[in-house]
């Protein structure tokens, strides 16, 4: 894919476990295993809603402002809110410094993430307003767009904006012929395919789907199934993260 320079590291080892051949990844994960995931909601005091999401070494901060008055005014739509979305990588988030100016990649990802969110946010409840969703990739280790959309939907929920469902995302890859869940940067550099997927898990709807790379048709079907399972797990973690914040708030209130 990215075609990393230099020697290709060993990414998949085949080990005997309980009499079965099992593919073990460079970081010890199994093919269908997620990285350690951490989520925290309400991390910024100025934003109406915010969330920090980590998928292994990938760390994304999302903040939501709004619904608020659309600026400039002519941008507002009479029958719904406009969603303004920015996916951006910090200059220090990557191995080589990334220019802070928006790249073509960031323009595209901002678009596909916005389109994914449009499908779940009940924009018709907030006519003539703007909902601003800002995502900053603080550290990049693969799967940044899916971590970003997971964080964005948590931030929207934290802002109290009505949604049909949360959005959870994960990238599936094909590494040395093996389909793997939650691909990281080293794997992505040498992968035959990288497929980010985001879904509204409870509705069973696909909101974001891209495939960079090559898959046979049956591999694609398997990859979708792998993504769906991963997304269900992430969805549970999202609900826990939201509950964690709001349960605490209620308890504090009780003490007073």
């Amino acid at each position, binding site marked *: 894919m990215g075609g990393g320079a230099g020697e290709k590291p060993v990414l998949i080892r085949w080990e005997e476990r309980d009499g079965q051949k099992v593919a073990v990844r460079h970081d010890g994960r199994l093919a269908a295993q997620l990285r350690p995931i951490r989520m925290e909601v309400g991390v910024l005091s100025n934003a109406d809603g915010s969330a920090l999401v980590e998928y292994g070494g990938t760390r994304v901060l999302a903040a939501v402002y709004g619904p608020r008055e659309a600026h400039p005014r002519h941008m507002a739509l009479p029958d719904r809110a406009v969603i303004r979305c920015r996916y951006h990588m910090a200059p220090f988030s990557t191995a080589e410094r990334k220019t802070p100016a928006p790249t073509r990649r960031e323009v595209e990802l901002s678009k596909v*993430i916005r389109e994914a969110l449009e499908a779940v946010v009940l924009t018709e409840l907030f006519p003539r307003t703007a909902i601003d969703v800002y995502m900053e990739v603080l550290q990049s280790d693969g799967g940044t767009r899916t971590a970003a959309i997971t964080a964005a939907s948590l931030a929207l929920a934290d802002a109290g904006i009505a949604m049909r469902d949360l959005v959870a995302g994960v990238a599936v890859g094909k590494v040395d012929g093996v389909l793997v869940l939650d691909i990281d940067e080293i794997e992505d550099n040498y992968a035959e395919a990288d497929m980010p997927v985001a879904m509204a898990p409870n509705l069973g709807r696909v909101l974001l789907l891209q495939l960079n790379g090559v898959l046979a*048709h049956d591999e694609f079907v398997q990859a979708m199934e792998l993504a769906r399972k991963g997304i269900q797990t992430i969805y549970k973690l999202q609900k826990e993260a939201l509950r964690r914040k709001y349960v605490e708030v209620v308890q504090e209130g009780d003490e007073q």
Partner: protein
Amino acid sequence: MSITPPFQPVVPKLKRYTMETLLSRGVRLDGRKLDEVRKIEIVPSYIERAEGSALVRLGQTVVLAGVKTDIVAPFPDTPNEGVLVVHAEFVPLASPTFEPGPPDENAIELARVIDRSLREIKAVALDQLVLEPGKHVWRLFVDIYVLNHDGNLFDASMLAAMASLLSARLPVAVKTEDGYRVDRGRFTRVVPVNRRVVTVTLAKIAGKLVVDPTYEEEQVADTRMVVAVSDDGRIAGIQKTGMGDLEYREVLSAVAIAVNKASIYHKALEDMVLPYRAKIEEELRTEKTEEAVGGVVELQPAPHREHEEPVEIAEVVDEEGQSGEEGSRE
């Protein structure tokens, strides 16, 4: 920053009801079946000035693509590969919704999806575009120019990009003191192509998937899926584009339909572009033989070079290294 587009198409929205009623009977507004592709016409080498070009008509949609070349240093991480650049312009004459200015997010997305679909499956043999590893390689620019927008810009642009690459020839590289100069008057070989890739776009309208949507259909569609399929039936890229969602099973059937329907576009390339490619390959072969018979290769100043700065031609044409390598490849 990506912003909900303000353009609210009123007329197509009014037509939505008609469209939905027709779709439930398996017919579309223009009389096509749900999985029917509009008439395809490809004119290879539409622009003679370009190293390769193609004009594609897909129904009323018109897209022109051109290939230009130059010689540059390769990227540090790929010293043994040429460089491929895909760029798309939605020129304002193509649609009332297009405006002058730098490419917007739609044009950037389209160019990037086509770029990935070509790159990941190695459609162009970039490893055969090296003059000196790590120092001088060919760079191919594929510039996509949308001339009339009647929906499905992805498929039309992908066809145009692929057809322009298939009809492209590499000019002679002349060795100079500090590198190479491109002699655009003469050509050595066709651009090496490993695989042919097309995209198949499906729009979801009222729970139905339609192939090759028109502009009106795109305006009322919930969302679209673009699936790149190679000539050996593999999936070379996917992009869900547009607001709205797809059910899980709709994604699977969209991809299945796309893999199936790709053959129509592949056949168009085979029928309308491959004969042209064979013809220019034959021409290049005869020219080369004549030169070999003539003995010394003389440097002819190429025509149409009014903008070029005078270049000191220090060495003879470095055709031998080039064509020698080529011979082993053929």
